[in-house]
């Protein structure tokens, strides 16, 4: 028995190899495609050089990373995006057209089975230590993602179930085969796997510990040149980066050095910025934009302000009425609640009119979004009408509606103390409609868990934006009435389920968009989701020596100060440092000379 076990163990590694990759030949009818026809968005006048100073992990929540690994325990923090930004993908989506553009791959082709995507690796591609990137690095990456040694169950699971195999045609031609059919555009998203330097990693039980602080060779524009634990990480631009002349990478990644310092308190970080010790600062929130970002450095034009509208999928903020709660089983009650939430007042007062009303659960998805759907407005008459229809016509002594001796009260669970300002306004306004909202503020993780377990009555929460609307997880009946699913409203509607199933299986992009719009309409009709707000822009303050292309961002750009390096997107690093302007500013500050103040509001990509 023992010998058999040993034999099995010995055989295992050899068998595992085959589970991750196999040699294959190209199909005879293969059609290679590439994309060099889409417009450029970086500025041809950009100058190389200079230093960009910012906070490690973003200035609003800066901390030193717990590891330099990108997978495994403690790796999933905000610093990782900077590491992964320098691990190039095969292809990217063009930040304006959303078409695939070349990255590590020069060409790609789709298999007839709709599960396989072929790539030609750029023969110039090298790791930062000079070793060429080859097909085996991709095979190794899959093996690594599936390995127990990296202690990353989600990755293990995802890459074991969604990926079938890596097909190796030759050193610079490779294919990824998945397990589910996807349309061509989606394949770039789902069947994407960044290579890992095979010559660098030695998997084993100690991998997590051994590689915790090792700087992994990468393929991107920058590499870490200095790590001062607890304090600072410096990224240095590769002077002869292999991809620097690629069409969509030219004139980006201009600064020579990116210094990321740990400044734990945002207020202190902002003071650093005001002294000119940081190049920029995110000031999206009304408090910063209107109050903190005022004063001398802005009035004298040393620092500029930029308000940039983007056009991309919006996070889904809102309130989900739990339909497993007796009260919310009644459509009229749900609609009554919809009209009793004075989101407009929150927007106009607490949020200073800066945020906008979110209208549906899937905004910013282009044709897949039905823009005719509008969120139900605060309307006491309608609220009264619907609630009276549901039998809640009478009011008690305290002004709250009553029915059969019960008061109309519902608990709102939320997980961010900073949102109390907003929730209390909703609560006070709902009183006018005869509804009592009780507030349950939990710690954010506890609130999320509470909602996942469907213990809430009303979940006040939000979902990050995805590349595709998340209908199945949040609104499909399959995910209703059970814990640990994202269907916070416990929506269980056979008609909607059918539409979501069709949408998931649909292949043609036009039909899929059509279905998507119908789904949004149906979710609106069910009325268990009350959309709240969106922030379709970012706002930053920066010193005048930081220069930007025109327009300063792309449709899908995020705040470029927080995301100075951004993974799996091709819009980062578009700014540059103008050393002459810097010298000029420094001298002007010494002499007390002023420049005209500058506040730019860029609406190039503003919707509506």
């Amino acid at each position, binding site marked *: 028995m023992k010998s058999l076990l040993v034999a099995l163990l010995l055989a295992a590694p050899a068998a595992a190899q085959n589970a991750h990759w196999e040699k294959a030949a190209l199909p005879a009818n293969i059609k290679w495609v590439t994309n060099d026809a889409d417009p450029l968005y970086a500025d041809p006048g950009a100058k190389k050089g200079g230093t960009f100073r910012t906070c490690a992990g973003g200035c609003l929540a800066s901390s030193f990373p717990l590891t330099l690994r990108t997978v495994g325990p403690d790796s999933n923090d905000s610093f990782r995006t900077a590491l992964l930004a320098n691990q190039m993908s095969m292809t990217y989506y063009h930040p304006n057209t959303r078409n695939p553009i070349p990255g590590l791959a020069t060409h790609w082709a789709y298999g007839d089975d709709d599960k396989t995507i072929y790539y030609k690796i750029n023969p110039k591609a090298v790791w930062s230590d000079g070793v060429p990137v080859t097909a085996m690095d991709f095979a190794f990456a899959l093996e690594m993602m599936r390995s127990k040694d990296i202690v990353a169950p989600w990755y293990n699971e995802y890459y074991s179930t969604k990926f079938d195999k890596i097909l190796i045609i030759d050193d610079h031609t490779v294919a990824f085969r998945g397990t589910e059919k996807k349309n061509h555009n989606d394949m770039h998203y789902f069947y994407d796997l960044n290579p890992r330097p095979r010559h660098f990693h030695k998997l084993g039980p100690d991998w997590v510990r051994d590689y915790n602080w090792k700087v992994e060779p990468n393929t991107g524009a920058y590499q870490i040149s200095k790590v001062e634990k607890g304090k600072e990480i410096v990224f240095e631009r590769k002077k002869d980066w292999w991809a620097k002349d690629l069409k969509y990478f030219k004139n980006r990644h201009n600064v020579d050095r990116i210094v990321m310092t740990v400044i734990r308190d945002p207020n202190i970080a902002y003071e650093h910025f005001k002294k000119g010790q940081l190049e920029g600062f995110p000031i999206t929130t009304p408090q910063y934009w*209107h109050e903190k970002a005022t004063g001398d450095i802005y009035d004298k034009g040393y620092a500029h302000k930029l308000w940039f509208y983007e056009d991309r999928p919006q996070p889904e903020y809102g309130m989900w009425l739990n339909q497993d709660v007796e009260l919310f089983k009644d459509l009229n009650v749900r609609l009554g609640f919809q009209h009793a939430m004075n989101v407009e007042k929150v927007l106009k007062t607490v949020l200073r009119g800066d945020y906008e009303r979110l209208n549906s659960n899937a905004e910013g998805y282009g044709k897949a979004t039905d823009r005719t759907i509008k969120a139900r407005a605060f309307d006491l008459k309608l609220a009264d009408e619907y609630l009276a229809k549901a039998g809640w016509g009478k009011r008690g002594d305290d002004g709250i509606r009553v029915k059969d001796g019960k008061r109309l009260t519902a608990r709102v669970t939320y997980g961010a103390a900073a949102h109390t300002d907003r929730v209390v306004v909703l609560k006070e306004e709902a009183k006018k409609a005869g509804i009592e909202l009780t507030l349950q503020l939990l710690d954010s993780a506890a609130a999320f868990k509470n909602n996942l377990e469907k213990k809430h009555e009303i979940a006040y929460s939000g979902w990050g934006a995805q590349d595709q609307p998340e209908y199945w997880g949040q609104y499909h009946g399959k995910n209703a009435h059970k814990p640990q699913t994202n269907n916070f409203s416990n929506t269980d509607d056979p008609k909607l389920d059918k539409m979501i199933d069709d949408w998931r299986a649909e292949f043609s992009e036009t039909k899929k968009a059509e279905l998507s719009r119908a789904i949004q309409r149906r979710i609106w009709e069910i009325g268990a989701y009350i959309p709240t707000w969106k922030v379709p822009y970012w706002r930053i303050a920066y010193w005048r020596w930081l220069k930007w292309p025109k327009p300063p961002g792309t449709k899908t750009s995020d705040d470029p100060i927080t995301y100075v390096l951004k993974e799996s997107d091709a819009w980062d690093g578009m700014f540059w440092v103008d050393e002459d302007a810097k010298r000029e500013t420094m001298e002007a500050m010494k002499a007390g000379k002023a420049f005209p103040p500058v506040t730019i509001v860029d609406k190039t990509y503003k919707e509506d």
Partner: protein
Amino acid sequence: MSRFRLDPLTRKKFARFARIRRGYWSAVILAAAIGLSFFSEVFVNSRALVVRYQGRWYFPTYGAVIPGKTFGLDYEYETNYRRLKAELAAKSGSDFVLLAPAPYNAYENDLQEGIYPPTAPSFADGHYLGTDTSGRDVLARLVYGFRTAIIFSLLLLMCNYTVGISIGCAMGYFGGLFDLLFQRLIEVWSNVPFLYVIIIVASIMVPNFFSLVFIMMFFGWMGMTWYMRTVTYKQREREYVLAARALGASDAYIIFRHILPNTISVIVTFIPFSVSGGIVALTSLDYLGFGLPPPTPSWGELLRQGTNHLDASWIVLSVVLSMIVLLTMVTFVGEAIREAFDPRRHTVYE
């Protein structure tokens, strides 16, 4: 009451306390403030004190909500009396509205378009201490927060002392194995990191007023036991206890009739410090966000808003100054009591 009559010595101590002016007046002011806070609705309230409308009198302060329709307004929710006052004044009839001196309650958001909270103190608007970050009146939140804090603290004190004194007394009186067991139990119990427990509990369930009192009592009763145990030990050996026992008095009779009255000076000395301790504990929990659930008015929550918005100095100043005044007064009272009850002045050993 006859069981708990104060002995002449204790009465002497109270008389001495009254002569310490600083402590005495602090106690008077505090008592008045606490007493008045139970009627805060009369002083700080969005509801009017008196409304005279079409020949009828209304007193909305206490009681049911009076919907706007009653006063000929077009809504069914609670009347906005400030606006009603302006409207009735404009009509120049015999109708009028008499508002509370500070015409806001602790929950309503006084928000107007174009003016963003927090707003600075303004006598014209009736926001004497300005508004907080969601447009609520700081004075109203301060007053109602004080009431919450003081009731919380007194309730907590009663619970803690009831449990602490009973167990401490029993430990001292019975001694032996009972004493030994409880000593160890208290030692272990004292080492439970109380703040963490509250944080854990608060993140799982939302504590309400009473559950918070209960949790804090659960981990706070030990303090009193040591003192009570020592004092009881001492008293138990005194001749009068022996005499009572020789006369056949029961344990309960001896404890309540003889020992407790003689320990009252110890208990009284601790009360003011326990009160301030309770207020500080609630405030710090609220500050950290683990105290009473929003939107309960609380000083800790105001303090947090204030420190996050130092540019809106009226928030942080109001609450910090109130805390300083309150805690200083409580400390004055404590000092005076300690002074008045100092055993060295009164005890005569033979």
